[in-house]
């Protein structure tokens, strides 16, 4: 019977190095998804707050679909759908080829679309919190539409949207656990392998849960620092 500390040590005997690799995959997946999700979410929010009804409709369809589907199903649809789709196309040229879709990229796309559909709602409510006078002010001092957006609206928008986006980041961090189902070696997958080999399931899944908790705690420290930094710039009214 090995002791708990041997199991959790670094090296060939223990599993800590494998779990550390899982942490690396989880964090890099979340970090790679964040910018994609933020940009798409912002564009969708722009569409949803525009005066043009057709743009609003297009944005709302996007949010309705990707907020309504379970994250796991979205992941599977993108993972297997891409596999089937690309296979079909390639078979036109080479009937013997087989395709393997990258699990990391599939995970990134799936989590990105889910994140962006929630982020677009956060951005939208932030847009609504900015008074119309800000746009009119920008127009009256001779700024173009894009300049008004960049110099006047965006700095205020980020400040208002920050708490909501921070929340979404924590949700994203947790949602990355789903990619273990399509074979990516994230924290949960590594813990599962360790649990199967050593028969200490409670120990390893408990450690995995605590690592997620630790990541959440570290994130909230980071978020607090960002909020303080952004809050300092706030003009006193």
């Amino acid at each position: 019977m090995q002791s708990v500390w041997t199991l959790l040590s670094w090296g060939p005997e223990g599993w800590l190095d494998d779990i550390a690799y899982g942490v690396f995959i989880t964090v890099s997946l979340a970090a790679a998804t964040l910018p994609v999700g933020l940009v798409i979410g912002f564009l969708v929010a722009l569409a949803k707050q525009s005066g043009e009804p057709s743009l609003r409709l297009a944005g709302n369809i996007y949010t309705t679909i990707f907020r309504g589907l379970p994250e796991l199903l979205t992941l599977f649809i993108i993972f297997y759908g891409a596999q089937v789709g690309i296979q079909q196309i390639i078979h036109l040229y080479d009937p013997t080829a087989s395709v393997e879709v990258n699990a990391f990229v599939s995970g990134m796309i799936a989590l990105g679309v889910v994140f962006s559909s929630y982020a677009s709602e956060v951005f939208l409510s932030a847009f609504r919190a900015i008074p119309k006078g800000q746009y009119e002010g920008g127009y009256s001092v001779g700024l173009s539409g894009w300049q008004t957006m960049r110099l006047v609206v965006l700095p205020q928008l980020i400040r208002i949207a920050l708490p909501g986006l921070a929340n979404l980041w924590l949700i994203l961090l947790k949602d990355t656990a789903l990619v273990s189902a399509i074979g990516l070696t994230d924290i949960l997958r590594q813990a599962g392998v360790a649990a199967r080999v050593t028969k200490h399931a409670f120990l390893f899944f408990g450690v995995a849960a605590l690592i997620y908790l630790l990541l959440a705690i570290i994130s909230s420290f980071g978020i607090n620092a960002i909020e303080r930094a952004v809050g300092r710039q706030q003009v006193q009214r």
Partner: protein
Amino acid sequence: MNVAAAKVDRPPALPRGWPRQRVLGYGLVCLWIVFLAGIAAYLVVAWNGELFAKYAPSYVTGLGVTLLLVAISIVLGAILSVPIAYARMSKNRILSGLAYAYVYFFRGTPLLAQTFLVYYGVGSFRPQLEMVGLWGFFREAFNCAIFAFSLNTAAYQAEILRGAIQSVPRGQWEGAASLGLHKLQTMWKIILPQALIVALRPYGNEIILMIKGSAIVAIITVYDLMGITRLTYSRTFDFQSYVWAAIIYLIIVEILRHAVEWIERRITIHLQR
């Protein structure tokens, strides 16, 4: 009145034209229409009566399992959330600290990790569980899922409840006290009715999140809607199994969302001006 005056009364409508935004908007809507029509066309082309007759009943059973799982978890979670919310609001440091730790743990870790912890981890305590006669309960994946989901949603619901109760102004408590109502009466007759208006939308969101989150039980071999979908796909390699599941999930979530909005409109009639 002459013709010129009539023209002054109502200037001609501005031509709507085709600004860049409208071109983009129409383009995107057309893209969506093509996409959705493509899926519909795919379902028509891929239609296989034999397959449908074979698997449609199990999809219905799977949907039933999903709804049952969510319903039981939400109810158990609601019952469990009351003492947690009470502890979280109590002035006793230890009690509120424990409740905070509970909520923080279940909100800070993935539901999938919690489910694995229960489903696979429970084997580590087999002798103890056999002693108290609970081993038979935890051997079933469905029961493990209900256990994990109830604990998880209890943490979220406790926070919803706490937020809603604390959103009621303190004057309501003081007013009730000055009328001679005791605490339980105040809570039941004055605070809760006002709190529930605030809590309705978060509760609706929580149910929707649970329905979406319940898809993960497919990984621990429960044949809910998602589990049936995976089973069908692994047997037939027909991608439409996933498309049907997506349609069913979307319909349920949309029905729930609109139901919550309808209830909210109904119960806030007295607040509308």
